[in-house]
């Protein structure tokens, strides 16, 4: 068996007395999409925020290419080429697309000043690939549509050569056409060999996009199954009952 691109092993975190994530292990192989499913408050987003550096775990280990890594901040995560697209998109509404795309990683001139022209040029290049219709580069992102904002968030993750991509409800705010666009993009990135963690409530979408799904309930991992081995009903019962029907059988 080959080494996972990324592995989170026995991760726990608690807030006050509540164990938000309790001894959970997940992994992703290169070119694989792993879905995270569960009710609101099941601990999916918390688990993922530990990986992206927003939260600090209380216990457990993280491995990239089989090597143990420490992730204490979003900057650490980025250094390991882990990029995140958050549910809330995490854009600064008052800044334009290029400023958001490069936020925290600005291109600077030789005098150390931010080079807006160069950043806009780079943004135009990547947008031409992701969303050719996107033209509104000089407007604050607040004036963009949900799909356009999502393009900015995705461009930001993809631009910096992500190897591991975390997508937290990437299609929650999108229309049918835009959702299809994101699905195509996920398939393209997967083909490029990225490992993708996908969080979604839409079980059918997950069955279509993911190779494996991990189901969580009350902070615990219920089970991880290959999608071809389970039915949608099996997954639903794991989400709702918190039991893995395959193990019970």
């Amino acid at each position, binding site marked *: 068996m080959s080494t996972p691109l990324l592995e989170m092993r026995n991760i726990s975190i608690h807030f006050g007395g509540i164990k938000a994530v309790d001894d959970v292990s997940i992994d992703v192989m290169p070119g694989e999409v792993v879905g995270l499913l569960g009710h609101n408050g099941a601990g999916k987003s918390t688990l993922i925020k530990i990986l992206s550096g927003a939260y600090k775990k209380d216990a457990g280990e993280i491995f990239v290419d089989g090597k143990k890594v420490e992730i204490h901040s*979003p900057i650490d995560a980025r250094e390991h080429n882990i990029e995140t697209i958050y549910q809330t998109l995490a*854009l*600064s509404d008052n*800044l334009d697309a290029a400023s*958001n795309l490069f936020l*925290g990683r600005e291109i600077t001139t030789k005098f150390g000043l931010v080079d807006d*022209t160069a950043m806009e*040029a780079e943004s135009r290049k990547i947008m031409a690939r992701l969303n050719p219709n996107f033209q509104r580069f000089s407007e*604050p992102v607040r004036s963009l549509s949900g799909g356009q904002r999502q393009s900015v968030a995705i461009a930001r993750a993809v631009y910096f050569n992500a190897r591991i991509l975390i997508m937290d409800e990437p299609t929650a705010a999108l229309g049918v056409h835009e959702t299809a666009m994101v699905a195509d993009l996920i398939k393209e990135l997967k083909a490029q060999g990225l490992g993708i963690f996908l969080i979604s409530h839409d079980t059918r979408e997950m069955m279509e996009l993911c190779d494996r799904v991990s189901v969580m309930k009350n902070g615990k991992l219920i089970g991880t199954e290959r999608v071809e081995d389970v039915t949608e009903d099996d997954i639903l019962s794991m989400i709702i009952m918190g039991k893995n029907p395959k193990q019970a059988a």
Partner: protein
Amino acid sequence: MSGGLGNLIKTLQIDTRLLGMIGAFIVISLVFHIATGGTFLTPRNLFTLTLQTASVAVMATGMVFVIVTRNIDLSIGSMLGIIGMLMGVIQVQILPDFLGFGNPAIWIITVLIGLLLGAAIGAFQGWLIGYLVIPSFIVTLGGLLIWRGGAWWVSKGTTISPLDPNFIKLGGASGTIGVTASWALAIVGSVLTIIFLINTRRKHISHGFAVKPVWAEYALGAILVGTISGITAIMNAYLIPTRILERRFTAEGLEMPEGYTEAYGFPISVLIVLFVTIAMTVVARKTRFGRYVFAMGGNPDAAELSGINTRKLTVKVFALMGALTAIAAVIASARLGSAGSSLGELDELRVIAAAVIGGTALAGGVGTIYGAILGALIMQALVSGMGMVGVDSPLQNMIVGGVLILAVWIDIIYRRKTGDA
């Protein structure tokens, strides 16, 4: 007609908010000019107006950053008071004993200590806000009381005067650079402006971006150079009163030639404001720090998730505010030639009003440096205009208060219309 004008503004890429504020300033000036029977729009009055605006304008640029990061600083008036007072003590009671009265090192050391003090006080308040997560309103409200009390405590209620003769040149009419230097500066400024325009255009073309038509670039250049020249001409048109010149000649044991005149040119304090404005604009638009200030104001969580340390950023923003307050303390005490314990009283409100009139949104994320400067100028024009017309001081306050609310209301409508939130 209005469509044509709208297109013109759009082609030139001039901010309509900027135009609105310049328009407001012109209307206010014209009204007072008529009401005072022609004394408001004179070189003498405009010269005085810029001097009076200087210290508030310097602080207003820092307040833009503070408000953009969704904070407020109510302590700056009191900070100005205690820094001014301590600088007064240092230059009058301490340094002359070591260096001798009038030693040119006195003002330099004094200003440096003032800057350090301002940055330290600001950083401390910023630390309380960023790291201990005490709301900025509370920290700086406390600061307002503490630093004002401190100023009284240092001075025991007395006023320190006269200040060091070199120091005083940083604040008022006694420190101007004269006609020739003013024009030289205007020429340098104009050349740099034109170089900047050309460079920007070149860069945009090299990346294949759309650029303004050439005539629009010329027009913009002409407007900017014209503005620089106009302001310089006004400063150079205000003649030094004859009796002051006579006194100067007498002091050197000379006879003043018949019909001799000399103009003031730019006051040093106004040059300080210009320098601060340019520097702060560069910081806001072209540095990572400035970018992060606006990112944090737009969405603190997004900034944090992008790897920006928003706590440290808060400390830096307040330290910068403190340093600018120290500069304002230099200008304010130097202009008066003394440091009293009530120096800077209510300045926090003038500064916040200037920033807000200049389009800084209290919700955070939005604001410009030039807007704050113009806001300060509009406020001061109102106050001194009303003073010249003879409006009672309580009524002045009432009118300024009304104008503040009106300006913010207009701003809200403007944002709603332009979808600028």
